[in-house]
């Protein structure tokens, strides 16, 4: 029998990048919250600058529930499962993956909210890729702007505005949608390499600008400025300069005394009463099962876990999984096309051993709908991103650009000369949802407790491939302009488990095609909210976290303003 705990106002499942944000407006409004987190607290001195541990061993210093339930993947419904990943791309801890993420903190572009209507208006409805289930968001960028603004200040984002109320500033992204004000901190500094690439972009007539980062460019509140030591990529910050929720919104929420954090809580089910409302959450901790009753449940795991927990939470009222009576849980899934990248070899050292992935320069000329697609065979585009970030195992594993074998003296001669002469871009491209890309429960693979893991059925489609090829050509052009003597186009890869996984509980007004409403609450279960990129219907060409966090704040804020309606 489960031990029943004292009822609380709101229980949040997952205190990561989004749960850790959603909690703050709720406790600040005077409600009590229990936050269930699968991981533990980690501290600055847990974050040794150790490439092997961070980048190759999946954080053995942390409790990683995720690693015991890694999603399986198959390209399509008639293919067998692909080889399974050994390490989950995300992590568990208070703060979740915001501890070791790259911290690029973009707002989506106005186009991303209106892919369907804007494509139809500008090019005709026939240009929506066949089989895509893309819809306009239920609102535009302007409705999310105040929440972006709030989160940028709470977690601390460094950057340069390119559009304040329509006034364009060429120091920032001239393509971005209007903002109300400047970022709370100036951008991170450039490095010699990023300056070299900026100059090359200008030579091409492209607009290069420093990207936004949830990393302090100067001291911010009680947290120090970034020290650029080179281990931010899948590494936690040893000086708390990275704005993970573990050092920003969660401590602030705790200071209200209305947040109770339960660590190493393994949530197994969201429970439903006989009225079809959620009544609380069941979880395991140290081998004991607990039931945490609550008036409202906010599901704030990563995309795969949000979908899995809903599908695992079967009841009389929801025989196919919670909030799934319309069969939409797991649908409209997609993961960002970031694989088709480009590596370049330069005839000189770049000195890019230090820095961080967020210390970079972007070109958005070929992103979103920033250029005319009339003569092209795809919609969308990509964000070109170069950055200073290199460590020894990664450098020694670099491509030899066809100039040397992979081992032996010839390889060693090559690597000795070139280990610091190569760079790989990060190219995020528009990726769309399709009717046959989805998440469900794997019928054969379970976690150690016997619960099925999440199964990804997804493959890149024609539009994704065309965008990838187009953007790779642009990146080659940029590298060549900067003096690269060789370039390698990297493969597109598969749609296996990703750090940029979207959909599965999509947000929208149409109850037939979406799981949650415009506020993030279930169409079928009024007192169940879902936060995270699982509610996003498009990806844009940039990292999802800030958008997921802005949406999370909005959902939390709505909850406090609509408490009576939600709990009626």
């Amino acid at each position, binding site marked *: 029998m489960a031990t029943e705990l004292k009822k609380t106002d709101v229980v949040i499942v997952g205190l990561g990048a989004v749960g850790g944000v959603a909690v703050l407006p709720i406790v600040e409004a005077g409600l009590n919250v229990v936050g269930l987190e699968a991981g533990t607290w980690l501290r*600055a*001195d*847990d974050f*040794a*600058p*150790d*490439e*092997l*541990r961070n980048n*190759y*061993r*999946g*954080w*053995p*210093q*942390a*409790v*990683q529930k995720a*690693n*015991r339930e890694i999603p399986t993947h198959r390209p399509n419904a008639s293919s067998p499962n692909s080889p399974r990943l*050994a*390490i989950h791309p995300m992590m568990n801890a208070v703060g979740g993956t915001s501890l070791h993420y790259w911290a690029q903190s973009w707002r989506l572009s106005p186009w991303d909210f209106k892919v369907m209507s804007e494509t139809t208006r500008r090019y005709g409805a026939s240009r929506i890729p066949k089989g895509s289930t893309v819809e306009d968001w239920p609102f535009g960028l302007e409705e999310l702007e105040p929440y972006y603004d709030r989160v940028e200040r709470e977690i601390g984002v460094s950057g340069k505005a390119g559009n304040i109320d329509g006034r364009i500033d060429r120091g920032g992204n001239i393509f971005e949608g209007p903002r109300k004000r400047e970022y709370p901190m100036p951008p991170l*500094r450039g*490095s*010699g*390499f990023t*300056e*070299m690439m900026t100059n090359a972009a200008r030579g091409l007539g492209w607009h290069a600008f420093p990207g936004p980062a949830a990393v302090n460019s100067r001291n911010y509140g009680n947290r*120090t400025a970034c*020290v*650029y*030591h*080179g281990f931010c990529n899948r590494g936690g910050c*040893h*000086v708390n300069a990275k704005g993970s929720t573990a050092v920003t919104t969660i401590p602030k929420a705790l200071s209200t005394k209305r947040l109770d954090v339960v660590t190493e809580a393994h949530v197994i089910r969201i429970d439903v009463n006989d009225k079809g409302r959620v009544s609380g959450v069941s979880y395991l901790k140290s081998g004991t099962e607990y039931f945490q009753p609550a008036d409202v449940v906010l599901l704030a795991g990563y995309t795969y876990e949000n979908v899995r927990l809903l599908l695992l939470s079967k009841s009389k009222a929801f025989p196919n999984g919670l909030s799934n009576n319309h069969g939409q849980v797991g649908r409209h899934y997609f993961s960002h096309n970031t694989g088709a990248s480009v590596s370049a070899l330069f005839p000189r*050292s*770049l*000195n890019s*051993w*230090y*820095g961080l992935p967020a210390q970079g320069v972007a070109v958005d000329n070929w992103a979103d709908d920033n250029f005319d697609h009339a003569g092209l065979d795809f919609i969308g585009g990509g964000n070109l991103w170069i950055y*200073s970030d290199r*460590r*020894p*195992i990664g*450098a*020694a*594993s670099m491509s030899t650009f066809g100039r040397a074998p*992979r*081992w*032996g*003296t010839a*390889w*060693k*001669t090559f*690597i*000795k000369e070139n*280990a*610091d002469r190569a760079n790989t871009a990060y190219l995020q491209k528009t990726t769309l949802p399709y009717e046959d890309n989805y998440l469900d429960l794997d019928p054969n693979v379970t976690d150690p407790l016997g619960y099925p893991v999440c199964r990804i059925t997804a493959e890149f489609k024609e539009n994704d491939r065309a965008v990838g090829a187009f953007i790779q050509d642009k990146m080659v052009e940029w590298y060549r302009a900067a003096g690269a003597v060789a370039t390698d186009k990297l493969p597109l890869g598969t749609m296996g488990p990703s750090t940029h996984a979207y959909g599965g509980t999509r947000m929208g007004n149409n109850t037939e095609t979406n799981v949650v409403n415009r506020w993030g609450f279930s169409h079928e279960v009024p007192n169940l909210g879902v936060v995270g990129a699982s509610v996003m219907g498009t990806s844009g060409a940039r990292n999802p976290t800030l958008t997921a966090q802005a949406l999370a704040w909005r959902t939390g804020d709505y909850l406090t303003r609509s408490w009576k309606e939600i709990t009626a």
Partner: protein
Amino acid sequence: MNQRLIARREWLKRVGAAAAIPPRMLLPIVTPSGEPIPGPAQSPIAPAVSAPETLTAGEAETLGAIAARLIPTDGNGPGATEARAAQYIDRALGGALSSFRDTYRAGLAALDQYAQSTKGNSFARLSTADQDALLRDIERNEAAGFSQSAAFFNLVLAHTIQGTFCDPHYGGNVNFAGWDLIGYPGVRLAVSAGEQGLNARPAPTHMSAYDYRMFSGSRPARAALDQGGRHHGD
């Protein structure tokens, strides 16, 4: 920040195998002018092989011979042998890489069997030219009687690179042989704008992450790591 350098190389105390190396061998193998000391694989400065922790002596010998060809000791300077990459793998197979132990046992046995059947001797006893020829065969999945040999080759190559270029905390990259080879200026806890200049060449720190006081503590999570990372998620 409260990090202070630890005066002594903390990792030397922790990495038992390295402690057995005479102190002079901990000096840079590359001369101050940057000129590498040329020498064959059996150079007198190569550290003595200590008893393996996970593999058998025979398996460890074969693995050491493979690593010595993947990243050879040559005119470019020390290689996997001096970095003790094979010893790193052997130790890790008892901890963080334990799920690969059977793969190694089977793969090393298959390679030796292939060496016996084609060259009439165990892999470690062959000439370097014969060793390279056999490694090319398994790299290309062309070794008769050795199925999936390319996967095994790729695994050993990846782990040999780890053992040569990882933080010395894990028993590899001894004397910073790997980091010096590729000019990695080393672990720093803070980096200035000047040190990120295109023409800047920061001096090597020759510090392990765990040489810094901030990370040399003994919280339970790190104690588990020190035993080879045997912990959740391995």
